[in-house]
C-alpha cells in the first residue's frame, strides 16, 4: 500500500470551503475529512481514488486525484457523500487537498447540477477573497 503525506493546510481554497461547509449544515466535516486523510495517508489509492482526466494542461506536473468520503450528516450512506479533489506531488509523495464539496445524488440534469455546484464553489471562494 503506497503511503503518502497529506498537507491539508497548503491550499487556502480548501480551508475556505471546509470552513464554509462546517458552518452551513455540515458540522461533521472535520471528522469526515480526518477519517478520509487517515485512510489516504496509509494508502494514496484509498477512498475510491480516481485520477481525474483532462486537466494536465493546468496541473504543472501534479496529478489531480478525486476521493470519496462518507458524509456522516447525510441521510444516504452509500450514495452522495463528500468529494475531495487533491493535487498529488508524485515526486515528493505529498497530497494537497484543494477542493471539497458534498455530492448530491445525480438527477436527470447533471450538467445543470455541475454548473450549480461550480457556481457555489466560486461564490464561496470569491466571497472569502473579498473579506
Amino acid at each position, binding site marked *: 500500500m503506497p503511503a503518502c503525506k497529506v498537507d491539508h493546510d497548503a491550499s487556502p481554497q480548501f480551508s475556505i470551503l471546509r470552513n464554509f461547509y462546517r458552518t452551513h449544515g455540515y458540522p461533521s466535516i472535520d471528522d469526515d475529512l480526518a477519517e478520509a486523510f487517515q485512510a489516504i495517508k496509509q494508502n494514496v489509492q484509498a477512498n475510491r481514488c480516481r485520477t481525474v*482526466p483532462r486537466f494536465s494542461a493546468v496541473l504543472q506536473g501534479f496529478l489531480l486525484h478525486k476521493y470519496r468520503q462518507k458524509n456522516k450528516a447525510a441521510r444516504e450512506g452509500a450514495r452522495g457523500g463528500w468529494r475531495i479533489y487533491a493535487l498529488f506531488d508524485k515526486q515528493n509523495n505529498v497530497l494537497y487537498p484543494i477542493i471539497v464539496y458534498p455530492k448530491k445524488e*445525480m438527477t436527470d440534469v447533471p450538467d445543470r447540477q455541475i454548473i450549480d455546484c461550480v457556481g457555489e464553489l466560486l461564490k464561496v471562494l470569491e466571497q472569502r477573497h473579498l473579506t
Partner: protein
Amino acid sequence: MNTTLTFDQMEASADRTLAVVLWVKHARNIAVVIVLFAVLNETLRMFLRTLSTDRLNSLSDEQAKGLNAKLQEIHGQLAGMLDHGAMCFLRRQKMFEWFIDQLEERAEDLSDIIEDLALSYNSAFRAIVSDCVKTVSSAQSAETVARV
C-alpha cells in the same frame, strides 16, 4: 394403483399440481432476474474499465461532451431502475442484495466519471483548479526556502 378417485381427492391433487407449477414459475422468475442482474453487472464493469483516465485524456472537448451525453443516458436509465419501487422489494431478499449493491456501486462510479468529464470542460472549474495549483506551488516554494 387405485383408479377410483373421489372428487375431493381429484381437487386436492389439482391443488398440489398448481402449487408445484406456481413454485417452478416463481423459481424460474428468480433465476431469470439473477441472470439478468449478473449480465448487467458484468457489462457495466467491462464498460467502466474502458473509460480509463488515459483514454479520457485523449478526448477533445467536443468528443468529451458527446461521450458524456451518452454516459448520462446510461446513468439515467440505471438510476431510474435502481430507484424503482420493485428494487426496494428485491433488496430485502438476501439473494438479490449483493447484485443491487454492486449495481449501485457501478452507478456511483459512472456518476463520478460523468462529473469529472463535465468539470473538465467547465472553464470556471478549470480556473479554480489552476488557482489552487498556483497557491500550492507557492506554498511549496515557501516551504523549500524556509527549509534552506
